């Protein structure tokens, strides 16, 4: 037992004595988690960044000016009004996500197009091709604000609305392309709208269904409920700390494995093996010290997450500690596997980093697994890091109890046993 403790103590002492390396090992995941966390929404209560867009109003009509004003009032977007060449240049430079160009004559043609198929004004949208999601955002923005203002112009009170209705009725009557029955029904519809407008103008009451004179409105509203622990809102840092913690702790597992290979090269392993200690003790001490280091590092990373980035253990604290402990053992057995399969420290480190990055990527440490295709999501259940990330998230922002931690703990321990068994079977004992 003394020999075991002496070896574990030595490993811990050596690891902790290199303060610069230790600082980097702890600081790197915190910094990167801070970055990813901010990208994913940051701390609770912070509004997401507004999407920068440009609107170029070539029409300068009352309608287009109202559309631009509506867009500017939308809190989801940061709308600016440069000239057309400047707008396109800003898109090209990546400073804005897209530029909307409202063409000349839009104010006149758009309301008429509501009643006359075919002749529609064309809004040009210039988008950054690297931001595919921006086009959907811009179209959504247009659908909401343009429809409201155009319908207001078409159906609303005032000279524009009356003029538009009269013009539409005139065109319907003169059209030779429309079926007579349809013509009658369309005219009746427009007559009813006109009567409603006139009645509202006389009484000062709003027209139901036409947005109280404000044009067509969205036929619904939404109310968002964040499904978290029920007590605290979602914290984007909770995911990023789980992901980056898992990634960098696995890197420490690589150090453990490569450390054994370096010990071989230095003759230290030979010296340890010449001592009257069993193979089980030698490998067991490496696993124990590696797991202890990984456990402490993960706690350090989460301590920073809790203190600085308001990450909270909303679920079971016991479950959290069990998951961290199981992941620490997993890391250590992964390191031992590297030591068993590796030959030279240099080549092994490169391959181990590649393997780690794949594990981390598939485990959902960089981006949540729900963005993966369904078959990848199913396949990643066989990736141990997936269990680690999911387990840590379950105990933090999802606020789940101990029962939710146990499957992740069991999965990680199973992987640890498998890694350890392969490592022991493949370990080169003779020099």
């Amino acid at each position: 037992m003394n020999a075991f403790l002496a070896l574990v103590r030595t490993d811990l002492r050596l690891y902790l004595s290199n303060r610069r390396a230790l600082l980097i090992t702890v600081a790197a995941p915190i910094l990167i988690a801070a970055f990813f966390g901010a990208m994913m929404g940051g701390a609770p209560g912070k509004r997401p960044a507004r999407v920068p867009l440009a609107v170029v109003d070539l029409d300068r009509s009352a309608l287009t000016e109202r559309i631009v004003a509506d867009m500017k009032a939308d809190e989801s977007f940061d709308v600016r009004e440069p000239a057309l060449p400047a707008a396109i240049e800003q898109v090209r430079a990546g400073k804005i996500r897209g530029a909307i160009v409202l063409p000349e004559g839009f104010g006149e043609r758009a309301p008429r197009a509501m009643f006359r198929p075919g002749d529609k004004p064309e809004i040009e949208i210039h988008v950054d091709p690297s931001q595919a999601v921006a086009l959907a955002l811009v179209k959504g923005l247009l659908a909401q604000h343009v429809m409201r203002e155009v319908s207001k112009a078409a159906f609303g009170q005032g000279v524009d609305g009356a003029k538009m209705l009269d013009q539409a009725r005139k065109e319907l009557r003169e059209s030779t392309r429309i079926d007579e029955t349809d013509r009658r029904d369309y005219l009746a519809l427009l007559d009813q709208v006109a009567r409603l407008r006139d009645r509202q103008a006389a009484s000062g009451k709003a027209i139901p269904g036409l947005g109280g004179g404000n044009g067509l409105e969205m036929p619904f509203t939404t109310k968002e409920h964040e499904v978290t622990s029920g007590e605290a809102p979602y914290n984007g840092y909770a995911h990023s700390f789980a992901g980056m913690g898992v990634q960098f702790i696995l890197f420490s597992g690589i150090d453990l494995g490569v450390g054994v290979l370096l010990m071989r090269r230095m003759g230290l392993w030979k010296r340890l093996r010449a001592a009257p200690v069993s193979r089980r003790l030698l490998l067991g001490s490496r696993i124990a010290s590696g797991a202890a280091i990984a456990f402490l590092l993960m706690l350090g990373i989460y301590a920073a997450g809790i203190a600085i980035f308001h990450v909270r253990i909303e679920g079971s604290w016991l479950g959290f500690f069990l998951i961290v402990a199981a992941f620490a053992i997993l890391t250590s057995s992964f390191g031992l596997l590297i030591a068993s399969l590796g030959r030279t420290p240099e080549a092994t480190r490169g391959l181990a980093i590649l393997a780690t990055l794949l594990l981390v990527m598939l485990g959902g440490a960089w981006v949540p697994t729900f963005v993966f295709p369904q078959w990848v999501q199913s396949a990643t259940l066989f990736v141990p890091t997936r269990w680690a990330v999911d387990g840590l998230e379950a105990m933090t922002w999802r606020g789940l109890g101990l029962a939710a931690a146990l499957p992740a703990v069991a999965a990680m321990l199973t992987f640890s046993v498998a890694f350890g068994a392969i490592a022991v079977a493949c370990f080169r004992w003779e020099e």
Partner: protein
Amino acid sequence: MLEATDLAKSYGPLAAVSGISLTVRGGQIVGLLGPNGAGKTTTVSMLCGLATPDRGSVRVAGKPLSETAQEAKRRVGLVPQEIALYEEMGAEANLRLMGALYGVDEPLLSRRVAAALELVGLSDRARDKPARFSGGMKRRLNIACALVHDPDVLLLDEPTVGVDPQSRNAIFENLETLRDRGKALLYTTHYMEEAERLCDHIVIVDHGRVIASDTRENLLKLGTAPAVPKGPSLESVFLKLTGRDLRDSA
């Protein structure tokens, strides 16, 4: 004290050692000499339990030695060819770890650590890290690590590689002191003058076999033959026995 009988070890089709036998008594330094690839390192590995012989046996003070024979292993100290130290841990901490691995407990451990440092002349650098030591100091600490559990048998695999004459002389004096204390030392080296100065008995191996095993004096007598141009020296005897062909280009 150390007795190896008919040791054989192959790695795949390569027979590294093919029937080596040797004995090292207490108070004796036995030199194990041989060209590169002769089987010296494999032999040392089997003598300290790092490699399991395909054939033959090793006994320490009459007890069989194997990887799992902890009692026998406890009586053997290994000085590897490499400087096998934790460079970022103090000299004393290195020794304490080695002592703990061999089951030495306090307060004996502290006394042994102090004695080992004293023997190799590093008492005043006990807390310093080997990373700050000269090559010679590291070599001396490398030896001290094998002594801290007070073994009966010391296996030294080229322990003076890369050290200056002063450090080498200091190491020789350490080893002679240990011989005087009744320890059994097996010393492998490429430096013939080292073997000439230190060894009471010399075993020359080549191609995995013992080709000569005798006292230093008797081996030197072989060098008086007319075919040897430079007169009697261990090197001339060695070259006569093992040939002049380069070995590490094979």
